[in-house]
């Protein structure tokens, strides 16, 4: 079959959530490092301003995520969440390093999503405590700032791996197109996410995978 057919992998809601999170993360990382590293603190100096940028970016981040989720396709988001939560036998095989056919998300992507969401929630909790603890001593804990630091190190490590796979690694970097334009090459999807392509064929035609080609055609026309 030709490599020019495309399947829609991510909805606009999903992509909006991803890019809101990604852009806020970079602003928060940059402003946070200025607050954290003495050399940068000295070079930039304007701590009250940088602190304001950091805190209000965090508020805007949470508000924007909530807004996208509220106004976007919530049914689809719930379905995506279920997809990310559940690991089948193939996913578990994949995690042990063996080859196994994967769905729309492979097991690594599912884990990445779960970890990212957990780190984001913890960032918000520890950051909120740091902010509020400055005003009310009852909410000041000795470890809050250390937790916030560790989250930074963990998420930075996760980000480096994520960027490598999304931008550099030849086998996987085509996935970036799915997160920018929404669709990916069918041929690539069949290789990396065969169970997902099968599912699409099923759901669109209500027929077994043997009749897949036409379903893919329909999808590619609608989403390119």
């Amino acid at each position: 079959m030709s490599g020019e057919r495309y399947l829609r992998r991510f909805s606009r809601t999903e992509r909006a959530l991803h890019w809101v999170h990604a852009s806020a993360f970079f602003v928060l990382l940059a402003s946070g490092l200025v607050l954290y590293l003495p050399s940068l603190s000295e070079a930039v100096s304007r701590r009250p301003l940088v602190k304001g940028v950091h805190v209000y970016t965090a508020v805007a981040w949470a508000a924007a995520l909530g807004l996208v989720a509220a106004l976007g396709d919530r049914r689809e988001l719930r379905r995506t969440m279920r997809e990310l939560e559940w690991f089948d036998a193939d996913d578990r095989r994949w995690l042990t390093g063996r080859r196994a056919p994967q769905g729309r998300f492979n097991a690594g992507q599912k884990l990445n999503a779960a970890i990212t969401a957990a780190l984001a929630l913890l960032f918000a909790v520890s950051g909120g405590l740091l902010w509020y603890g400055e005003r009310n001593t009852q909410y000041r804990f000795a470890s809050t700032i250390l937790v916030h630091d560790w989250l930074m190190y963990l998420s930075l490590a996760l980000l480096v791996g994520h960027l490598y796979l999304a931008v550099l690694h030849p086998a996987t970097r085509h996935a970036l197109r799915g997160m920018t334009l929404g669709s990916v090459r069918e041929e690539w999807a069949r290789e990396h996410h065969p169970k997902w392509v099968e599912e699409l064929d099923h759901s669109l035609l209500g027929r077994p995978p043997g009749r897949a080609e036409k379903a893919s055609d329909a999808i590619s026309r609608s989403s390119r």
Partner: protein
Amino acid sequence: MKSDLRPYGRRAFLGIVAGGVAALVWGRPLQRVTARLSPVSAFFVTGGWRIYTVAATMPRFDQDRWRLRIDGLVEHPQELTYRELLKLPQATQVSTFHCVTGWTVQNVHWQGVRFADLLAAAKPLPSAKALTFVSAEEPYADSLTLEQALLPDVMLAHSMDGRPLTRPHGAPARVVIPEMYGYKNVKWVGRIELTAAPADGYWEVRGYDRDAYVGHSNGH
């Protein structure tokens, strides 16, 4: 089909969140262990310090123009140059620096002048009971009682870890009072005013304790 599904994603999420929330309690003790075991720690990136400032720019130290004024309730108001400060009797100490936000730097080597020596020429009047340290970083200021300032490990430091104080650490002179949290350790000190009673400093106006004893104030 359904039976072979496992909620690993949800478990990973909940597990990490639970671990992170628990770390608010055990994070500090754990760090004491990891700091000893592993060189890959925040300590080696930042030296353990964070630079907190309240103004738009950090004061810049000009050795020729800098003066330390000592005035208020004293017999002989003073204006010391940097060189004169270095000629006063010198003291050294190794102490731990605690920030009220939860970070700590151990074994900091300080060199400076004890307040008894610093105030000797100015001769505080009997009515002088406190010192207000006015920072070149406006509007930062804070105060100590005379009694607190005369504790044996309290000084106006001009060197840290064998080198003159750097700009982020308050060059050329800062207060060091290891008994209290960092916000009492005023950086960029340019003026010391002796007063009849301690006044609320920058953070105290914002709800922090005036007597900021480590472990016994500000909710800790």
